[in-house]
């Protein structure tokens, strides 16, 4: 088994120069096949499709090894081959094979569990109007925030991402994201006053002085 943190560049060099080529490729496979498989599973592909795509990606690596620049990032190269492979498969209409639970429509229409829950959750007309108005005011206030602050907040609210993930997506440090979110909350509270409903917790803020 490969050692954790084993230098990839050494393996690439062995693969390109032909010295213990098979052994180097096996070690690369052991290192990256679980990550690739996981990468495809996270895209919604089935177990078998994810195995196929992992194999296809490794074939791409094997074929293109001669052209790979050793100073480039191996993971970036892997990502490009893998993403092109799964997008090609999606284009071929293999999307139907993706794991997705199908819910019969009649369950919802005929008062099945989903229908009953929905009926119990229906808010009173006034409540719904108030919710919509709060939501509109909140979006307006968010749009007025400085760009990076707004982006941090939108990713936090809409995609429910963690600080570290937002930091990766916006190429910021997690601390900067934290500060942006803290300041965004404060500004929104000031802007909206009694209408403020914390977008990060969903709780009304009437109790806050």
């Amino acid at each position: 088994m490969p050692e954790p943190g084993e230098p990839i560049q050494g393996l690439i060099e062995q693969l390109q120069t032909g010295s213990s080529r098979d052994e180097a490729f096996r070690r690369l496979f052991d290192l990256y096949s679980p990550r690739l498989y996981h990468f495809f599973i996270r895209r919604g592909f089935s177990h078998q499709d994810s195995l196929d795509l992992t194999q296809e990606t490794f074939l791409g690596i094997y074929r293109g090894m001669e052209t790979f620049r050793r100073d480039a990032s191996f993971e970036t190269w892997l990502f490009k081959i893998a993403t092109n492979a799964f997008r090609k498969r999606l284009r071929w209409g293999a999307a139907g094979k993706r794991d997705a639970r199908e819910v019969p429509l009649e369950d919802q229409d005929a008062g099945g569990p989903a229908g009953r829950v929905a009926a119990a959750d229906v808010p009173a007309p006034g409540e719904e109007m108030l919710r919509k108005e709060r939501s509109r005011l909140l979006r307006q206030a968010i749009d007025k925030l400085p760009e990076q602050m707004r982006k941090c907040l939108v990713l936090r609210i809409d995609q429910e991402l963690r600080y570290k993930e937002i930091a990766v997506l916006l190429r910021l440090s997690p601390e900067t994201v934290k500060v942006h979110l803290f300041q965004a909350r404060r500004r929104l509270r000031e802007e909206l006053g009694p209408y403020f409903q914390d977008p990060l917790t969903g709780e009304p803020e009437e109790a806050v002085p």
Partner: protein
Amino acid sequence: MSHPEPHPEPEALAAYHAGELTEPEERRLQDHLLGCPECAALLLDLDGLSDPGFGAGSLAPADQETLWRSLQSEIRKEEPVPAPLAPVVPLRRAVSPRWLPALAAALLAVTIGLSAWVVSLQRKVDVLSRPQLATQTVDLYSSGSRSEGSPQSLETFPANVLLLTVILHPEKPRSTSRYRVQITRAGGEGVWTSEWRREVVQPDPYDPIPLGLPRSRLGPGNYRIHWIEETGQRIGDYELKVPGP
């Protein structure tokens, strides 16, 4: 979630991750990420691929081994199979027979002859393919209705035109359907006289009539044409100048 913009290419996501995009490109990609959880997750996984813990334990060792064997088999299929060595054939000294130059010269002569024949055939086909102008038409208006004093003239009258069709436009309305046309060359020599009856239910009094004249009767010169009704009334007098071929 559907997103109106096309998803960025993996190369663009990788370049963004590596900080290689310009500021406007970076801003555009960030705006896409805000509304596209799919690309956001993809970018997070690009980051995850560098992490040894990413997907750890997700692939069972047995599946990993099967995958490796399958991959090896695919690679072997693609590797070129060395071609078997061809048996060595001893070289023999090539001997050219004496009649070979004569045969070559004969073939050359035949080739040149055939080429010349093909060229002449092509020329013949070109000539025959040209449209053959066999008739020519001219509209004639009565001398009384024209402001110009000189006779109407054919611009050309090529030798291959066998029939000249003149369209006579009446100067006066016609009242009957029996006519006579007289053609005389300048100087009074009669060339052609024709009589005919036109059967129409309601003749248009200003309807022109076509008149076909054979080339054999029309040498170069000036002609006068008279269109006369059976009652003797003149419907039109025409002048025509026919050039040489």
